[in-house]
C-alpha cells in the first residue's frame, strides 16, 4: 500500500532524513543520542519508531520540531516538502510547525494550558496560523472536539483541562494537532499513560483520522503491540542507530536483527502458546553515550562476531527477505 503511494500517486517522499545525528554537550564530553539515521516517509504513511529507553527515538522527533534541549544539536538533513527544516529561519520554521507538522506528547496534561478553556486553546492555533476570526475558529474547535468524540463538545469546549479525563485530554491534543490539517503528525508515546481500553480508543481515532485526512504519522513507542495496530512500516532503534527497518507484517513475521528477535521473544502475549520462561536479552539497554566503533548492541548480543566490536554494520538488504527490508547486522545483513 505504502509502496503504491510512493511510486504512483506521489513519487516524492514527504519527509526525508539524511544522516540525522543528535548530540548533546555534557560534562566530560559529547553524548550521541541519534547516530546517522536515514528515513523516507511517504505522504499518508504511518511509520512506527520502536525502541527502549535511551534509544534516541523521541530525540528524532524533538530534533524535527526544533525542541531539543539547549545543549543539544541536530546535524544532517531533514527535508520536509522540499525544504530543509534545519536551515529554515526561525520564522519560517514556526510557520511549518503548527500548520504543516504537529506533535502530540505522552502527557497531555503538561501540553495543555491549565488556565485556558479547552476550546480557546484549540481556536488559538487557527486564529494565529490561519487568520480565522474568533467566532469561526471557536466553531471549528467545537466541530473538531466532536470529531474526536468528546461528548457534548459545545459545552466541553468551555471547560478547563483539569475537568477532562486523561483519555479525553489526549483526544483534545489530537484534535488540536489535526485542526491545522497538517501533512505530518509526530506522536511521542501518545498512549503510554492511558489505560488499555482508552488506549484502544485513541489508536482507533488516530488510524481513522490519518486515513481520512491523509496525514502521515510518525509514532514513537516502546510498545510493539501499538506498532502492530497502527503502523504500515517499522523502524527499530537501539543506541541511537537503526537496527532494522521493514513493512510491519514482514518485521513481525520474520525479524532478522538479533535485537528485534530478542524484543519479540521478550514480549509476553495473549494468544501464543505459553513458554515456561520469556525470552530475554541479557544486560540493560544502552543509553546515549560516546560514539562506538562497532554495533551498539554488541554487549547484549548473543550471536556477536569479533568484527561486531570493531566495525559498524551498515543498514542493508537481507538475502532471502523482501527487498524493502534493511538490517544493520554483520551476521544477518548479507547483501540480497
Amino acid at each position: 500500500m505504502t509502496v503504491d503511494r510512493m511510486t504512483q500517486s506521489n513519487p516524492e517522499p514527504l519527509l526525508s532524513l539524511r544522516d540525522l545525528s543528535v548530540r548533546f554537550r555534557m560534562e566530560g564530553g559529547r553524548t550521541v543520542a541519534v547516530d546517522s539515521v536515514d528515513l523516507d516517509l511517504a505522504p499518508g504513511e504511518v511509520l512506527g519508531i520502536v525502541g527502549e529507553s535511551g534509544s534516541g527515538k523521541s530525540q528524532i522527533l524533538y530534533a524535527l520540531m526544533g525542541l531539543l534541549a539547549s545543549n543539544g544539536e541536530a546535524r544532517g538533513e531533514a527535508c520536509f516538502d522540499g525544504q530543509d527544516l534545519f536551515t529554515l529561519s526561525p520564522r519560517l520554521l514556526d510557520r511549518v510547525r503548527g500548520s504543516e507538522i504537529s506533535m502530540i506528547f505522552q502527557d497531555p496534561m503538561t501540553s495543555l494550558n491549565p488556565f485556558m478553556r479547552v476550546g480557546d486553546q484549540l481556536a488559538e492555533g487557527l486564529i494565529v496560523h490561519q487568520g480565522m476570526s474568533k467566532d469561526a475558529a471557536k466553531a471549528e474547535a467545537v466541530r473538531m472536539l466532536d470529531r474526536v468524540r468528546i461528548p457534548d463538545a459545545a459545552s466541553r469546549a468551555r471547560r478547563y483541562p483539569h475537568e477532562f479525563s486523561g483519555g479525553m485530554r489526549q483526544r483534545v491534543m489530537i484534535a488540536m494537532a489535526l485542526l491545522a490539517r497538517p501533512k505530518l503528525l509526530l506522536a511521542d508515546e501518545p498512549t503510554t499513560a492511558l489505560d488499555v481500553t482508552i488506549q484502544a480508543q485513541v489508536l482507533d481515532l488516530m488510524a481513522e483520522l490519518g486515513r481520512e485526512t491523509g496525514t502521515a504519522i510518525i509514532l514513537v513507542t516502546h510498545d510493539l503491540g501499538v506498532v502492530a495496530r497502527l503502523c504500515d512500516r517499522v523502524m527499530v532503534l537501539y543506541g541511537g542507530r537503526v537496527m532494522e527497518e521493514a513493512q510491519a507484517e514482514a518485521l513481525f513475521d520474520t525479524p532478522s536483527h538479533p535485537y528485534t528477535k530478542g524484543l519479540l521473544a521478550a514480549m509476553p502475549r495473549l494468544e501464543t502458546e505459553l513458554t515456561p520462561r520469556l525470552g530475554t536479552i541479557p544486560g540493560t539497554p544502552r543509553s546515549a553515550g560516546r560514539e562506538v566503533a562497532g554495533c551498539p548492541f554488541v554487549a547484549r548480543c548473543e550471536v556477536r562476531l569479533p568484527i561486531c566490536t570493531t566495525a559498524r554494520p551498515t543498514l542493508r538488504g537481507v538475502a532471502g527477505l523482501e527487498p524493502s527490508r534493511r538490517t544493520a547486522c554483520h551476521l544477518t545483513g548479507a547483501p540480497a
Partner: protein
Amino acid sequence: MSLLEARNLGVGYTIPGAGLFGAPRHLPIVHEVSLSLQPGRTLGVVGESGCGKSTLGRALLQLIPSSAGQVFWQGQDMAKIPNLRRRRSEMQIIFQDPIAALDPRMTLGKIVSRPLATFEPELSKAAARARAVEALQQVGLSADFADRYPHELSGGQAQRVGIARAIVGRPKMIICDEPVSALDVSIQAQVINLLMDLQESMGLALVFISHNLAVVRHISHEVMVMCLGRVVEKAPRSEFYARPLHPYSKALMDAVPEPDPRREKGRVGTALPGELPSVLNPPKGCVFATRCPLAAEMCHNSRPLLREVAPERHVACHFVEGA
C-alpha cells in the same frame, strides 16, 4: 489451609467533604473481595486505573486498615496476630517505581539487610550483611553491589534490589504491585523470569498486581479481574485466557495490542466507547454497565453477584450462563 485468605474484604479512604465545611466522608475503594492463595501459587490481579488493585494489595498485608471483612494469614485473623511486625518477614511487597522505593543515602547492602533488624534482631552485623549479599546474588546481582548506592542502578537493577530486600527475610509470599510496569520490555522479561525462578526455588506465593493482561497470563496460576473496586471475574489462568466470560474481561482482552499486525489491523475500530466511571460516583448497578455492549435495564439497577458458573470460574454478570 490457605496461606492467605480474604473474606469479604472492604477498604476505603476518608476524603474531605463537599465544600469548606462538609464533614469528611468515607470513600469505599474495594468491595467484598474474597480470595485464597496457596503456597507456591500466583494470583494475578488485573484491572485499569482506579479499580482498587493496589489498595487491595496493601490491605491484604494490613498495611492499611480494612473497613470490612477479614484477612487470614495461615488461618489466623491478621487483625489478631500479636507482634505482626515480626511476622511480616513472611509476607513482603515490591513496588512499581523501583528507584523511589530505595533510600538514596544507604548502600544497597544496608537497604537489603535492613528488614533483618526487625525480623531477626539477634543477627550480628556481619551475618546480616552476608544474608544481604546472598539475597543480592539470588536476584542476579554480584556481591560488590552491596557497597553501591541506588543512583548507580538502572531501573531493572533497582527492581532486583527491591526483590532482594523482599526475600532477605525468607518470606512465604510477596505482593508484587506493578513490579515491571516501569521497565523496558527486555528488562521486564528478565524480572518476570526472576520472580518465577524464585517462586520455584523458594516455594513463594505471589499476588501479582498489574494492568497488563499479557504479563499476568505469563506468570499467574489464577486470574482475578477487578473493575471499580469489585471482582468481576475470577478463574484459573488457562480457562480465563481461552474464554473470558465477563464482558469487561473480553473488552480488556480485545483492547490489548499484540505484536501481530494481522490480528491488530482487524481490531482497528473495535474500541469500547466511553470513559471509566469515576470512583467518586460509581454506577448503581453493575460497575461495567455504563460501557457494556450487552447492558440491559437490569444491569443499571441491580448489581450482579459474583457466582460460580463452572468449577472454579466465578463471574459477576447477569448474562453469563453456566458454562
